[in-house]
């Protein structure tokens, strides 16, 4: 296995060595090998990375093409592995190669940013791509500065010569298409420019500005040439804004240079504008005048692009190719709501939208609510029971009423799927229902702690596993008098389980069964205190449970152990009084007890005096 792998890696490296020129077959071979030997992905990646960093600069691009091909065809895990060192590799290479290669690297990088068809995400990890992007932005800014300083000092004769050349070119073009009035305008502009230059009154800084601006406009024109070739229709659009900016002649230059990136063509066109411009140039080049540093030049470029895009958009709109969102569409609304002054495309990644499912849910809930908000079921004639009504397509049922069963009640219990509505009553029921699930689940898990702190089974021993059995069924008359609300109530005070226990106890008594369940009996006895007739009516289970003791400041761990049942009781925060309290607790002569435990033990005290004393204590506390 390992040997196979080693062989494979060696073969891969050998093929890689042959990649000294841009050879499609070699790259294809490498890609195939990578695709077929995913298990060797890591060594392959290492080999390729080595190759890129070690080979001579002229061959680096080919190696990058191989990387690109492997990642695009084989995909993961290569993309993941390459993402790790991608930035360092790319940066190193970029800094070593010449401008032409750089532009090719940039166009390669652009393809990486496109979402791939299979995953819908960019090819590599976004972190790596973002770093490269930032690097490229910095590099090109730097490039621009260098380039500015390298420009020849503009002199009037040089500029004049270039204008002459441009004029000639434009004239030639005019002969080919004499109807084009735009070209005439361009000629006029160039003539004006020439006159201004001949006056020779411009200072050097002004000339420099003009030179740069012309260069920028020219480079934009280069891009337009490409577009023009693809979309003849666009040509006209572009020319409409052309004359004002004096760009028309440049784009006519029949140059064969590849213009796929700004970096490459930005060096050449300057030769056209080697001479200086006049002071009133700013009136000719209105939109870009007064722009001084590279930063503002780029801004100008951006606004120019934007203008072109807008005109393209307009023309598409006019020809009916665009869908215009209506006034109340979500897109329009979003545009209005969106914070002003922010750049939309810079912000979008930062807005984290909830999952589509959730949004859909909310939308459906709203729809359901409005679908039946004014529906009165008893007033719909098509709901009366008849053969026709039951078997026909009833639109009221299908469009409105059906929601009553589902989304009209938008609070769906995540445990059992039962639905609750949004009115206050329903919300209360919902929260009681959730509490009930919580209590029941705790009990099913057999956890005694929570129950104790809730006071539901105070005084119970810790051995409360949820051991249960089927109940006997009821007699006819018992069943006829039975109310299901006893089972289904989720309210705390009428805990279904207690009632159930009571019922079972009744059942048992009725059947005169001998009780074989002494251990369990303890527990039952404590959940429902049977009051003897002599008790004060105030001394019932509920009032006892409601007794509470404010936690003394001297306590260390917020809990105490009931001396009777040996269970410890944790403090809870009481919202009403704003204090930490022990529920279901009493303080008798400085000692703390569970209220129910104390009551039970007092009640069962054989000494009558002590019993009365204890009961009096409790009575006092309740008052």
């Amino acid at each position, binding site marked *: 296995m390992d040997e196979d792998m080693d062989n494979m890696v060696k073969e891969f490296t050998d093929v890689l060595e042959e990649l000294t020129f841009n050879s499609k077959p070699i790259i294809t071979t490498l890609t195939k090998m990578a695709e077929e030997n995913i298990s060797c992905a890591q060594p392959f990646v290492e080999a390729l990375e080595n190759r890129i960093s070690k080979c001579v600069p002229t061959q680096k691009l080919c190696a990058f093409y191989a990387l690109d091909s492997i990642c695009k065809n084989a995909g993961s895990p290569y993309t993941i592995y390459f993402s790790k060192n991608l930035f360092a590799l790319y940066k190193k290479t970029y800094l070593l190669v010449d401008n032409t290669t750089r532009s090719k690297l940039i166009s390669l990088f652009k393809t990486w940013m496109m979402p791939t068809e299979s995953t819908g995400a960019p090819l590599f990890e976004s972190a790596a791509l973002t770093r490269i992007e930032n690097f490229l932005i910095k590099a090109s800014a730097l490039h621009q500065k260098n380039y500015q300083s390298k420009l020849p000092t503009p002199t009037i004769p040089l500029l004049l010569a270039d204008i002459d050349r441009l004029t000639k070119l434009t004239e030639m073009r005019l002969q080919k298409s004499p109807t084009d009035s735009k070209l005439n305008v361009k000629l006029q502009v160039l003539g004006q420019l020439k006159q201004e230059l001949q006056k020779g009154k411009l200072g050097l800084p002004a000339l420099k500005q003009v030179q740069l601006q012309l260069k920028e406009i020219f480079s934009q024109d280069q891009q337009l040439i490409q577009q023009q070739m693809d979309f003849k229709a666009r040509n006209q659009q572009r020319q409409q804004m052309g004359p004002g900016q004096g760009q028309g002649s440049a784009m006519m230059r029949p140059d064969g240079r590849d213009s796929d990136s700004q970096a490459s063509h930005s060096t050449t066109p300057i030769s056209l504008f080697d001479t200086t411009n006049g002071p009133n140039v700013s009136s000719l080049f209105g939109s870009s005048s007064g722009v001084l540093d590279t930063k503002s030049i780029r801004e100008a470029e951006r606004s120019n692009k934007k203008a072109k895009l807008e005109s393209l958009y307009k023309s598409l709109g006019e020809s009916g190719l665009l869908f215009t969102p209506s006034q109340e569409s979500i897109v329009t609304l979003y545009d209005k709501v969106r914070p002003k002054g922010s750049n939309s495309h810079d912000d979008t990644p930062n807005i984290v939208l909830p999952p589509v499912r959730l949004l859909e849910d909310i939308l459906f809930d709203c729809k359901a609510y409005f679908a039946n908000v004014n529906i009165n079921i008893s007033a719909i004639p098509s709901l009366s*029971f008849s053969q026709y009504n039951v078997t026909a397509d009833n639109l009221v049922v299908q469009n409105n009423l059906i929601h009553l069963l589902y989304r009209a009640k938008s609070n769906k219990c995540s445990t059992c799927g039962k639905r609750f509505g949004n009115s206050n009553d329903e919300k209360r029921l919902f929260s009681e229902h959730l509490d009930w699930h919580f209590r029941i689940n705790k009990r099913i898990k057999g956890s005694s702690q929570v129950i104790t702190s809730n006071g539901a089974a105070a005084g119970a021993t810790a051995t409360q596993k949820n051991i249960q059995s089927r109940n006997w069924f009821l007699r006819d008359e018992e069943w006829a008098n039975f109310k299901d609300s006893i089972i289904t109530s989720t309210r705390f005070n009428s805990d279904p389980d207690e009632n159930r226990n009571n019922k079972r106890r009744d059942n048992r008594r009725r059947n005169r069964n001998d009780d074989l369940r002494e251990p369990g009996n303890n527990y039952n006895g404590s959940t429902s205190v049977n009051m003897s007739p002599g008790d004060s009516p105030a001394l019932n289970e509920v009032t006892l449970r409601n007794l509470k003791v404010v936690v003394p400041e001297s306590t260390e761990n917020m809990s105490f152990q009931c001396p009777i049942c040996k269970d410890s009781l944790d403090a809870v925060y009481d919202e009403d009084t704003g204090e930490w309290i022990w529920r279901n607790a009493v303080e008798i002569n400085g000692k703390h007890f569970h209220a129910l435990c104390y009551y039970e033990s007092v009640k069962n005290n054989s000494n009558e005096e002590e019993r009365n004393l204890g009961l009096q204590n409790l009575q006092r506390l309740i008052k």
Partner: protein
Amino acid sequence: MSFLPGLVETTAVTDLYVDTNEVHREKIPQGTIWKIKVPADSKMTINIVSGIAEIFGTELANNVEYSFSNWNFSIYAVEEVHLEWKGSDPHPIVEDEDLISNRTAKYIYNLHFSLDKMRSTSFEGPNILVIGNKGSGKTALCRTLSSYSIKFKAYSPMFVNLNPQEAVFSPPGCLSATPISDILDVELPIWGQSMTSGATALHTKQPILKLFGLEMIAENPQRYLQTMDSLASVINSRLEKDSLVQRSGCIIDTPPLGQLSDDLHELVHIIQKFRINFVVMLADVDNEEDTATLEKVTPLAKSLVGDFFVKIPRLCGVIPSDDVYMRSLQRSSIREYFYGNPGTALSPFSLSLDFEDLVIWEPKNVLSNGETAVENNEILNLSQVSISPSSVQHALICITHQDKHAKQEDVANAAILGFALITEVNEKRRKMRVLLPVPGNFPNNACILTSYRYLE
């Protein structure tokens, strides 16, 4: 082993490699039903990832793992559902037609809302009877209607099961009535739990049971009618006292029409005794059996409820069931009664009894007692069972609320206290082991033998 003849063919190799933990994903488009068969020996868990899914009208919670065993059912996607399922059976789905459009959903919705309208306009709710041939979806319709009834308003319809072979909230062999006061348990073919002594994940239900005891209605039609009468009378007294249930009305499930006598006098009896005002028949017009039955039923029903007799097509989610499946459902309902289910484990109680401790009665079976023609006036009488391994071994017996020494006519219609299972009979020592649902001594009550046997 392959050299042994006959062994080669039976070795099912494929099953050995089924990964029970493999998560399968399924998308159910809106308005379709996904039919599922989970055989008795396998298990399936379903987790609804998104969307609204329901099983017989009960909506499933999302992102909760539901587990199913020994049940054929279908999931209906009210809105597009994405779910994940795992299972020991690689094909829990009914092949070829597992995803079909729910053409009959609209009838159920129409029915439900017309019932809801009646509930909102009258204090006396609708009593609706569902009839149809075998496998037409009667119980599914009743279950769905019951589930819908409690969804929007807190109604509590009374579900009445008149099919003794069907086990709903109880072991088989009974006729029962249960107020549906809360959500049903989607995992259980028996709809939900009857009451237990402890905590259950869902609210339990409190049914009233009346024992028929035999399997087929034809084995003692008179006893069937008598059992039904006593059920009807206790239901009526409940309805008088429970205004909520009265307002919500009754939803009544029936045995397949084929099991009733030819003149359908049982049907007339049901309609009168349970004060039925609406009858729904599930029947397809292109089904010969259904058209024949329709011809018989229509004039009868029209004469009793008039225009409130409605025919709708058979439900399209129905999965045809056979006797083996019926038996396995009955078995699991008996197990459920004593042992609960994985969610709620119950602890039954086993004890030893002398033969003399038990008094067991038995309803007469007209079909098997061929040698002595049963006198008409004696057909309702119970006969005492002499305890022997052959007569009571593994039998499910019903403990009544009547005293051990009560007269047989009192025992015959007594309320049911519960059931017990005779697990072992030792004739020599005249002892037997009995499984009781509730810990304690064996109640000092009379018992009735049922036709159902359960071997653990």
